[in-house]
């Protein structure tokens, strides 16, 4: 199977190069807090950029919006409030950590551009309820866009490469792009919607090999209400299962995703499928590790795996760390912040850990 590159990796969207206003993601904070810490560290320490993380930020209501329990006008005004935080801090470049949030902001800003009366409404309601005013952002970029933009600069600082040190060959990486990153507005995603380049660019730059497989563009299955309500979760797991069945013959070494929800689902559903169907998608029964792009970049930069938070993943990463040649102390894995050794998590029945 041959793949050739054409328009998509020539298409570059505009990504601001400094002075970022960071918005934290509900899901990323919940499941991958270490990734947000790592991202801030990369931007500030490795790249010397200015990024602001204010305390009085909050959810953009994205999940509420897409579960249709939060009306458009509410979400719109909450978005306006977040922009007012950015404006009052003197920033213009909005960086939402969540891909759903990225989608929400892109949609709302697009709505305001096409329907100025809605923008006027947002201004009015925000002012009437909170006394706040806001400016539209000059640029909206997802953190993965920024890492993509500076992947060469980060590469200079990286101690490791995406290479299997046992075989010398590039690691085979499945890159998964969150649906709301480029499907809503293809022009807002690096490389557009069919062959997004934001993660592929990182992988290629850092020595790895991107794996193409038939269900590459398939949704991970979050489905918002299809996961939030337990009765619907079959939908969610079925989608992820479809992806893993499709990628299995290609024997990827790991999966990386830019959406925190996708990362969480592709990790946790492997556990669920293993327990329900006694099936894993790697050869040894451990599953295929699923990382955030911050974890991928952080590992290559030499950040400690347990500070990054790899121990929070259900599919274990040690075998991947071994392939990368990254040292880790197994004794530190399940310690508390004070160094106390906590009882280990229980072991799944079927998924090997």
């Amino acid at each position, binding site marked *: *199977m*041959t*793949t*050739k590159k*054409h*328009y*998509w990796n020539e298409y570059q969207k505009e990504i601001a190069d400094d002075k970022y206003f960071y918005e934290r993601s509900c899901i990323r904070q919940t499941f991958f807090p270490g990734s947000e810490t790592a991202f801030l560290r990369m931007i500030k320490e490795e790249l010397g950029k200015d990024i602001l993380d204010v305390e009085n930020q909050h959810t953009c209501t994205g999940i509420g919006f897409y579960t249709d329990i939060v009306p458009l006008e509410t979400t719109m005004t909450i978005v306006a409030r977040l922009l007012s935080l950015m404006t009052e801090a003197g920033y213009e470049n909005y960086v939402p950590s969540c891909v759903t949030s990225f989608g929400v902001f892109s949609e709302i800003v697009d709505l305001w551009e096409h329907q100025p009366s809605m923008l006027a409404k947002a201004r009015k309601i925000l002012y009437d309820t909170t006394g706040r005013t806001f400016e539209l952002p000059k640029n909206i970029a997802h953190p993965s866009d920024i890492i993509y933009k500076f992947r060469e600069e980060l590469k200079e600082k990286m101690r490791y490469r995406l290479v299997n040190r046992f075989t010398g060959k590039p690691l085979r990486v499945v890159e998964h792009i969150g649906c709301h990153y480029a499907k809503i507005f293809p022009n807002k995603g690096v490389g*557009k919607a*069919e*062959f997004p380049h934001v993660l592929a660019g990182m992988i290629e730059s850092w020595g790895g090999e991107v794996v*193409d*497989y*038939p*269900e*590459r*563009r398939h949704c991970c299955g979050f489905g918002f209400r299809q996961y939030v309500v337990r009765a619907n979760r079959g939908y969610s797991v079925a989608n992820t299962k479809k992806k893993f069945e499709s990628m299995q*013959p*290609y024997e990827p070494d790991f999966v990386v995703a830019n959406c925190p929800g996708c990362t969480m689902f592709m990790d946790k559903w492997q556990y669920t499928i293993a327990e329900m169907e006694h099936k894993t998608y790697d050869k040894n029964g451990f599953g295929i590790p699923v990382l955030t792009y911050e974890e991928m970049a952080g590992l290559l930069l030499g950040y400690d795996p347990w500070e990054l938070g790899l121990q929070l993943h259900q599919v274990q990463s040690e075998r991947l760390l071994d392939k990368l040649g990254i040292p880790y102390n197994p004794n530190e894995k399940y310690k508390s912040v004070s160094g106390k050794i906590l009882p280990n998590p229980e072991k799944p029945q079927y998924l090997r850990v």
Partner: protein
Amino acid sequence: MFKPLEMKEKEKASRSDESPKPREIKRRLKAVKKIRRKKRLEPEEVELPLQVAIIGGGAAGMEAASVLAAHRCPVSLFEARSELAVNVKNKYKIFPDFSDAGQLVQTMVKALDHPLITVHKDTEIVEIIQEPDAYILLDNKGVSHTVPAVLLASGYEPFDAKRKEELGFGIYDGVINSLQLETMLKEHKVVNSLGEEPKRVVFLQCVGSRDEKVGNHYCSKICCVTAVKQAIEVKRQQPDTEVYVFYMDLRLWGQGYEELYRQSQEEYNVHFVRGRISEAASTFDGRIQVKAEDTLLGQPLKMTTDLLVLMIGMEASPGTRKLGKACGLEGPYGFVRSKSVHLEDNLSEQEGFFLAGSCKRPMHIAEAVNDGRSAALEIIKFLRR
């Protein structure tokens, strides 16, 4: 690009001038009329001492050239490429009667062997200057040609399927376009990505047409019958291959087209699925997986095929786009705009500037030939007025 009367002296000097100047043209036209009246000649008995320029050596341009020459009007035919009628040459057999495209081209080219026709290959017209009673054409070799009338027949180019990234053209070897299939059929070598006879071939209609995402809302008219024709040809060469055609509508408006469709079903068992394929991906074993909905059943379907053939539409050629814009005649989608589609379809808003063929809209070969012929007659009418 229609420049005002005064040209810069420098530009004048840099061009070699083989043809008469505009004032000379006016004089000669007047002289012709005088001679006619004096000798009581009919218009068609007088040979026009002036060349008409035809831009584009395709079906329309070639037909116009031979008709003009038959009416004793000298013609300069300019073709940007090295060969004439490349769009026709690239075909194998032409619907609905499976005539040989190569022979058709040969016939048309032969008709150009006429003392009054001069063919300029590898010659692109890069600039057109409008003067009263004349047009000055500047070609890519720096030569200028002054003529009383111009026929724009710069044609179309096939849609570049790479722009539909989700269909995998140019990415996966098992995805080809209809032109590549024509070549395979000509060579009797219809093969999949592994070089073997495909067990299954899937055709997808409307690639690059009826699609807001690529900016072409229009229908390209001839892809439906082309797919039916190619489906039959595949089955004739490889009777064991399964053939599917995925369509939204089957537009078989021409004489014999609907019958061809029926024949494809009854004699060749071609399967038709009403659904537009959304994406194509390569499977682990090098086949192509497509996703569509069978809208008549109301259910999504996934199918693996050895070969996916994209029925690409027709777009304005680069020459059509450039010249159409430069002459102020740009129409929708970069095609050129005629004066009126009903009774003045070979005329444009510029007097003495005529249009023929697929530079205006998608057309099939017979239509382009007819259009070239009718444009020639309009030109003759114009010159002998």
